[in-house]
Each structure stands twice: as structure tokens, then as C-alpha cells.
């Protein structure tokens, strides 16, 4: 068996490469420039990198193949996710730009890590081999552990990092065991199968060929995969880390986690379950349904009594994971596209929300409590208005993107005959509406305290981010046709 060097096709991973290179450059640059020009070059550079990566991704739109000996899939699905991640990344960077200054943690590494993490998430989305998926997951997880703990001086930040890290590695062990079992059962970790020597047929092929009686081990493996990925998307009962990690992390990071790692995690879930393991749906559907119901209800209910906005949003993100799962369960084109749409719009909204949080919280953490938002509308109408918009969108009120997202996923579920699931979903979102409204109550129906008068003022970048996300939230709620088209065309490879 002679050595055949692989033909190098970089199209699939071009964006990742760009981001990584940019990150390295940025590190070096940061090392040299130190605190020279007022740190604008870092976000600018990262933005450029993101933009370039995005362009490279878009450039491939329409392709549908696996590359690098079947390790990565280059298909509409991954491209959609990558572009979305690019947007998230840019927003995060600029939101962080202010936040770091306010929090006094100006570090070039932050941007580098953002880029790396984004790259990892992208790889996750396009991974066509479980090993690649695992590595990608680890890459962005480790990156996130660090970013969560970025505010060294803050006990909360440290604590979040530790919890996130311990549970994260714990869960990745399970995920890895799942991969091992897949390997054991099918003799390959590759999803689609490759032609190059040394690698066998893919899991999909195995499923197509093997009689259902021979799938025991694979089914069990499915379970472990659900556990591992469920952790990433904060699905009950693997959600426990979420509130703590979200609360302690710097607000932009929280936003990035909520938006990005959910998207990446769900990208993996969608590819694995709705595409590869689709024949096994009889096995995993009941479980996902159970998880979805639990997630929606627990997330919504537990958020009801939260007093800390970040924590509240954390629980709400759990609930939203549940809503997306409804789309996953539908396991139809509608379901996949709906979930993608949901994730994209949810990401934008939640990023905006956390941008507002980061503006309000200023330097210290006790400004994240709801009481810090008393009468905000009468001091910062625009800011409060934006937050209102985000809250309504998260609550799923029409004319916001959040509503459309729910419409799509629930529609998909109903289309597949899971009307009752949709009913549970809407009831959960009714409960959820309660605590979103509580935020509005605080902002509009309570008088501002005196000491609130000196509220930190967001810099241009974060305000810009808020504006953009707000517009997106509104715009995608009114003219959502285009994005819906993209999500619908974002089909899997094969």
C-alpha cells in the first residue's frame, strides 16, 4: 500500500484557514504594538478577516461535495452556518471592543480567541467525520473556556470558567465514547464515506446496508452523541452549566456563546440526526422529543423568578434550545431550514440583548440585576427600545424575527404531525413571555432610581451593534423571505 499524498482542496476550509491565520497575525501584531494606536486595529483586522472568510464561504455557495478525503463537507448547509457565524463574530468583536475597555481587560488575545473559536465552530458545521467534529468541538470549547474566564479578577468569571470547563470536558468524554462506539459498530468514523485508500464506507452507507437488527451498538452510540451535543446546545438535562457560565462570562462572550456555540452544536446535531442517522429516527426521535419538552418547559419555568438579566437570558436560551429541537425533531426540509432560520435570528437577537447588557452593566456585575434597569426607557429611550424589541422577539411576538423562527419550527413540527409538540411549545413560550414582560415592566413601569442616573454610556461600536441587531430583528420579522430562501436552499451534502 503505497503512500498517496492527498490532493489538497482548501475550498471547504478556506474560511477557517483565513480566520486562524488572521488570529495568528493578530497575536503577533498585538505583541508588537502593545497599547499603541487606541486598539482599533484589532477589531478592524478581525472584521476584515471575518469579512474575507465570509466572502470565501459565499463564493462556494451551491457546491455539494466532501473534500480532504471526506473529512469536511462543502455544502449549502455548512456555508449558511459559516456565513451566519461570520456575522456573529463581527458583532461580537465590536461589542467586545467597548466592553473590554469598560471592564479594563484590554487584551489582544481576546480577538485572537474569538477568531479561533469562530473557526472551530465553522469546522464543526462542515465536519464530515466524527473525529473532525470532535476536534472542532474541542477547539472552540477550549477557546470558550478561556474567554469565559477572561475577566480574571472577577470571581464569577473564574467560577464560570471552572464549571464550564469541568463539565465541558466531562461531556466531551461521553461524546468521545459515543464516537468510539460508532467506530466500533460501523468500522468508520466518517459520515459520508470516502474513496481514498485506507478509509472505508461511511456511516451513512453502513446504515443503508446493515439490517436494523445489527444496529444495537450504533443506537447506543446515538445516545452518547445526543449527550455530548446536547451539552453544547444546553438541552435539559445537560443544561446545568448554562446559567452559571452565562452569568459569569463577559457579556459579549455570553452573547457569542449563546449565538455561536448553539449554532455550531445544532449544526452538528442537524447533520448527524436529520441527515446521517435519519434512518434511525425511530430510535432517537422519542428521546429528542422528551428532551425538547423538558428543555422548553424547564428553561421557561426556571427563568420566571430570575432577578439577574444575564441569568434570565441564560435560562431563556435553554428554552430556545428546546424550540429549535422541535425543528430538529420534525427532521424534514422544513424542519432543518426552520431550525437554521431560528438559530440565525435568535443569535442576532441575543447578541443584541447581551450588547445592551454589557452597556448597562458598565464596570461591575451588580448592574446586571433587573433593578438596574428601572425606568430605563425614560433615560435611554433608544437603548430601552432596542432591548424591548429583543425581548419581544425572544418572546415570539409578531413583526419580530423571533416570531418567524417559532412559526417555522412549529410549522415544521405540525407538518410532520407533531401538533401536540407545537402546542406544548406555544404554552412554554407563553410562560416565557411572562419573564420577558417582566423586563419591560421594569424598564417602563417603574420609576428610575436616583443613583441609576449615572448609567454607563455605550460607545459608538456597541451602540452600532445594538442598532444593527435591532434592525435585523425587526427587518427579519417583516421581510423574512430572503433569509428563509437561503435557509431552505442550505441543503446537506447528498
Amino acid at each position, binding site marked *: 500500500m503505497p503512500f498517496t499524498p492527498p490532493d489538497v482542496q482548501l475550498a471547504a476550509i478556506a474560511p477557517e484557514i483565513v480566520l486562524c491565520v488572521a488570529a495568528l497575525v493578530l497575536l503577533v501584531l498585538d505583541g508588537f504594538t502593545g497599547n499603541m494606536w487606541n486598539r482599533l486595529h484589532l477589531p478592524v483586522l478581525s472584521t476584515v478577516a471575518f469579512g474575507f472568510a465570509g466572502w470565501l464561504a459565499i463564493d462556494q455557495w451551491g457546491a455539494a461535495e466532501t473534500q480532504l478525503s471526506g473529512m469536511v463537507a462543502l455544502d449549502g448547509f455548512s456555508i449558511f452556518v459559516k456565513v451566519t457565524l461570520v456575522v456573529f463574530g463581527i458583532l461580537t468583536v465590536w461589542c467586545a471592543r467597548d466592553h473590554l475597555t469598560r471592564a479594563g481587560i484590554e487584551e489582544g488575545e481576546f480577538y485572537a480567541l474569538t477568531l479561533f473559536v469562530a473557526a472551530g465552530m465553522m469546522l464543526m458545521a462542515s465536519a464530515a467525520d466524527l473525529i473532525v467534529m470532535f476536534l472542532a468541538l474541542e477547539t472552540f470549547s477550549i477557546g470558550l473556556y478561556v474567554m469565559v474566564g477572561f475577566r480574571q479578577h472577577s470571581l464569577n468569571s473564574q467560577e464560570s470558567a471552572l464549571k464550564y470547563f469541568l463539565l465541558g470536558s466531562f461531556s466531551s468524554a461521553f461524546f468521545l465514547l459515543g464516537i468510539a462506539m460508532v467506530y466500533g459498530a460501523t468500522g468508520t468514523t466518517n459520515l459520508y464515506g470516502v474513496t481514498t485508500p485506507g478509509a472505508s464506507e461511511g456511516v451513512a452507507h453502513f446504515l443503508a446496508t446493515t439490517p436494523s437488527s445489527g444496529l444495537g451498538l450504533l443506537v447506543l452510540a446515538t445516545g452518547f452523541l445526543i449527550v455530548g451535543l446536547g451539552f453544547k446546545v444546553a438541552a435539559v438535562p445537560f443544561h446545568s452549566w448554562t446559567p452559571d457560565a452565562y452569568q459569569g462570562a463577559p457579556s459579549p462572550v455570553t452573547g457569542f456563546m449563546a449565538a455561536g456555540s448553539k449554532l455550531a452544536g445544532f449544526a452538528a446535531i442537524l447533520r448527524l440526526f436529520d441527515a446521517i442517522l435519519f434512518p434511525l429516527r425511530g430510535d432517537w426521535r422519542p428521546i429528542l422529543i422528551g428532551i425538547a419538552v423538558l428543555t422548553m418547559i424547564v428553561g421557561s419555568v426556571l427563568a420566571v423568578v430570575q432577578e439577574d438579566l444575564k441569568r434570565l437570558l441564560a435560562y431563556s436560551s435553554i428554552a430556545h434550545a428546546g424550540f429549535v429541537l422541535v425543528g430538529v425533531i420534525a427532521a424534514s426540509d422544513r424542519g432543518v431550514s426552520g431550525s437554521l432560520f431560528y438559530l440565525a435570528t435568535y443569535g442576532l437577537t441575543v447578541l443584541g440583548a447581551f450588547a445592551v447588557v454589557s452597556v448597562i452593566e458598565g464596570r461591575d456585575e451588580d448592574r446586571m440585576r433587573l433593578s438596574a434597569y428601572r425606568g430605563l426607557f425614560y433615560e435611554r429611550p433608544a437603548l430601552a427600545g432596542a432591548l424591548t424589541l429583543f425581548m419581544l422577539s425572544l418572546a415570539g411576538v409578531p413583526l419580530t424575527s423571533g416570531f418567524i423562527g417559532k412559526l417555522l419550527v412549529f410549522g415544521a413540527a405540525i407538518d410532520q404531525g407533531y401538533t401536540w409538540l407545537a402546542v406544548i411549545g406555544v404554552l412554554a413560550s407563553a410562560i416565557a413571555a411572562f419573564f420577558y414582560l417582566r423586563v419591560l415592566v421594569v424598564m417602563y413601569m417603574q420609576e428610575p432610581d436616583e443613583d441609576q442616573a449615572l448609567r454607563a454610556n455605550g460607545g459608538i461600536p456597541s451602540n452600532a451593534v445594538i442598532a444593527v441587531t435591532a434592525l435585523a430583528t425587526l427587518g427579519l420579522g417583516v*421581510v*423574512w423571505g430572503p433569509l428563509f430562501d437561503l435557509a431552505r436552499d442550505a441543503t446537506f451534502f447528498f
Partner: protein
Amino acid sequence: MSDLPMLDIAIFIPLAGALLLALWVPKDKPDIARWAALAITVATFAVSLFVLFDFDAAAPGFQLGSEASWIPQWSIGYVTGIDGISLWMVMLTTFLMPLGVLASWSITARVKPYFVFLLILETGMLGVFCALDLFLFYLFWEVTLIPMYFLIGIWGYGRRVYASMKFFLFTLVGSLLMLVAILFLYFAATGNPTFDYRELLGTPLTLGTQRLLFLGFFASFAVKVPLFPLHTWLPDAHTEAPTAGSVMLAAVMLKMGVYGLIRFAIPLFPDAARELTPMVVALAIIGIVYGAAVAMMQKDLKRLIAYSSVAHLGFVVLGVFVGTSAGMSGGVLQMVNHGLSTGALFMLVGALYERRHTREIADFGGLARSVPVMAGIFLFVALSSIGLPGLNGFVGEFLILLGTFTAFSWWVIPAAFGIVLAAIYLLWAYQRVFQGPVTNEENSSIVDLRWRELGMLAPVLALIVVIGMYPKPFLDRIGPAADRVVIQLKEGSVLPASGVAEGVGP
């Protein structure tokens, strides 16, 4: 005039006005905001008058609307249009809104946002009555929720936050269930999925499916109406809302519920509707008697009126569901009547509150001495809502009861007894507030209605008499549309041609 889409213009004038107000009017110039709001609402009314004149009662189906594709991927369109039923709902809204603005003159805190919300609310309500695309309808339906939530929550009294929350959540739960039903219908549609009401009509569904979907819609509408026993949000919302809020809530938003039943719940699922009619009728009748009984015992004037609304809406729903053209037309007319009378009552109570800063009946007494005009008007309006012949209330209630009698014979007795109870609680309240000796010194010195207040009440009173004495123009326009719905309720079947499979559909 009819070459312009007057209806859509009317729908969106308030929204445009709201934006204008929000962006251009400075915060510290409340008067500008007030007058601007007044101008905008009056303009809307003026435009809606064109709609009224262009309306052709004879023409079948919907008219004066417009149609545009919006989200073709989901075959969602901007489709509007009105028939004899929605026409009057639209007119009612545009007519009452300027009065609502006038009633809000006394709002002094955060004037600008107040009127912004009020205007958005108007657009929402108009949209609900005109939308012929279920998606669009749901959109407007929810849009009305937000501004009302803020109106109650920010400018309300006492337990405003509690009330607003209750209002929002009650309605939301209902409407979310409706959303599921709408989606189900969307996918069940014959041919490719669509939200277009006119295409969805006659979608074949098994009886079981119809039942579930009907209940889905019903959940939303019954909360809004509100139908016993889902009414408990109403007293709180009414009581705590600012005057204009109460007026709009009672006069228009409750009608949205009934309108939904007439426009969607019945025509889309006639078999289920027919099957469940006894239940609905029973609930309505219970509502009539129960609402009246509870109203009798209220100590708060606004609460009393709120419960009277429960009773009156019971009448309306009764008329809608008995399935006779008399009942249906009466029901629709009664919607208008209730809008006028209850709206006026809330304005009066609001005026009282501004003067005495209390709504406790016990705090009043003998007011007819100090404010004869107000007393007279109050009595007049009360009589109209008691259903005194010659005033508007009677025409509606009579037709409803007549229809009930022809369809359900003696079921009418408890319903008709409702009008006795109505007399009892309203006259008793009138006696306790306006008659008897002046017990509380403050009551002897309060000033009578001002010109502004007279100005906002006069048109209502005029209409009350007009409808009472000469309802012909109203009934003539309502009639055909109402009869269509009646026919749908009685004959229209959308069961699948191939044998009726029981149980839920796909």
C-alpha cells in the same frame, strides 16, 4: 374617490402618524402631541367615511380591499377587504378613536409615548378587522396587544402592572393556541399551503380535526370576548386602564373576539361550530346572567361596567351562534351598540375620576345636584345599555333574543332575564352615585362636564338615538354579510367528500 385604496390608507394613517409623533415631536411639547394625535385620528375617521360611502351593501364577498404578495415562499399575502360586518367594526374604531384621544387630554405624564401607543393600537385594530390573510390577521391581532399592554401598564391606576400582565398573558395563551390552529390549517389547505382566508374557506377537514381547530381559534377569541369563564382578566384590565384604554378595550378590542368568531371560527369550521353551538350558547347565556349578577355587587364603578360588558358580550355571542339572521345581525349591531354605550360610560367614569380621584361607588352620592348634565348623560347611556326601546341597545338585544327564541325557543328566558338584571345593577348604581342626599362634602363642589367632554360625548349620544330610532342603514349593510355567515353556520359543510373519518387529521 374609490380609485384610491381608502381602506388601506385608513389602516396605516395612524401608524404613520405614530412614527411621525415618535420621531419629530419633541418630548417637552405635550400639546403638540395631543393635537397631532387628534388630527391624525380625525383624518383616519374622515378617510374611513369614504370607505363607508364607497361600500356597496349589495356586492357579494369582500370589497374595497387590496391584495399584494408578501412572502411568496409561504404564500403569505397582504390581503385586505371588508364586508358588511367588518365595515361597521372599522367605522366604530375610527369613530371612537378621536373621542379616545379627547378623553386622554388629561394625561399629563409621558404624553408623547402615550399617543404613539394609542395610534399604533388603532392601526392594529383596523388591521384585525380588514385582514383576509390569516397570517396578516394574526399579526395585527398580536400587534394590538403590545400598545394596550403599555397603555395599561404605564398610564394605568392602582394595580396597573398586575392588570397589564394578566391582560397580556391571558390573551397571549389564547392567541398562541390559535397560531397552532392556523398553522395546522395552513398545511391542511387543499392544493398548496396558503394563509389566504378566501382559499381556506371550504378546506375539507374531518369533524374531529375541525373540532380541535375550532377550539384552537375559540380559545383565542373566547378570551378576548371575553366569554365566561375566561373573563377575569377583563375587570382588572378595565379598572386599571386609563380612560381611553378602557374605552378602546371595551368598545373595540372585545369586538375583535366576536369578529374573529364570526369571520373565522364559524366559516372555516362550520360543522364543528354547529356541533359545539349548544356549548357556546350555554356559555353565552351563563355569561349574561352571571356577568349581571356579579356586576350588581361591585363596589368599583369601573368594575361594574366591566362586568356589564361580560353580560353584554354574552348577548352578542348568543346572537352570533343561534344561527338565525335576526340573531346574527342583532349580534353585529349590538357590537356597535355596546361599543358606543360602554365607551361613553367609561368616558363618564373617567371624567368622574378626574374630578374626585375615586371610583368607589360609596364615595359618591347625590351628584345629580352638582353635575346635572353629567347625571343626565350617564342615565341616558345607562338606559341605552339597559336596552330601552328607542335607543340603540334595544334594537340589538331584541333581534338577538328574537333570533334565540326562534332557534332555541325557551333558552331565551334566562337570556331575556338578563335585561331585567341589567336594569337592576345600572339603575342601582345610578341611584347610589347620582341620587339621594349629598353625603360627602367634596361631591357638592365638583364641576360639571366641560366643553371638551361634551364634545366627545355628543356624537356618541347622537348615534345612540339614531341607531335606536332608525337602524335601517346599519342593518341594511350588515344583513347580507350576516346572512352569509348564518348560511355557512347552518348549511356549510367542509367535511371531506369521501366518508367522514373521525378523529384528528394528519
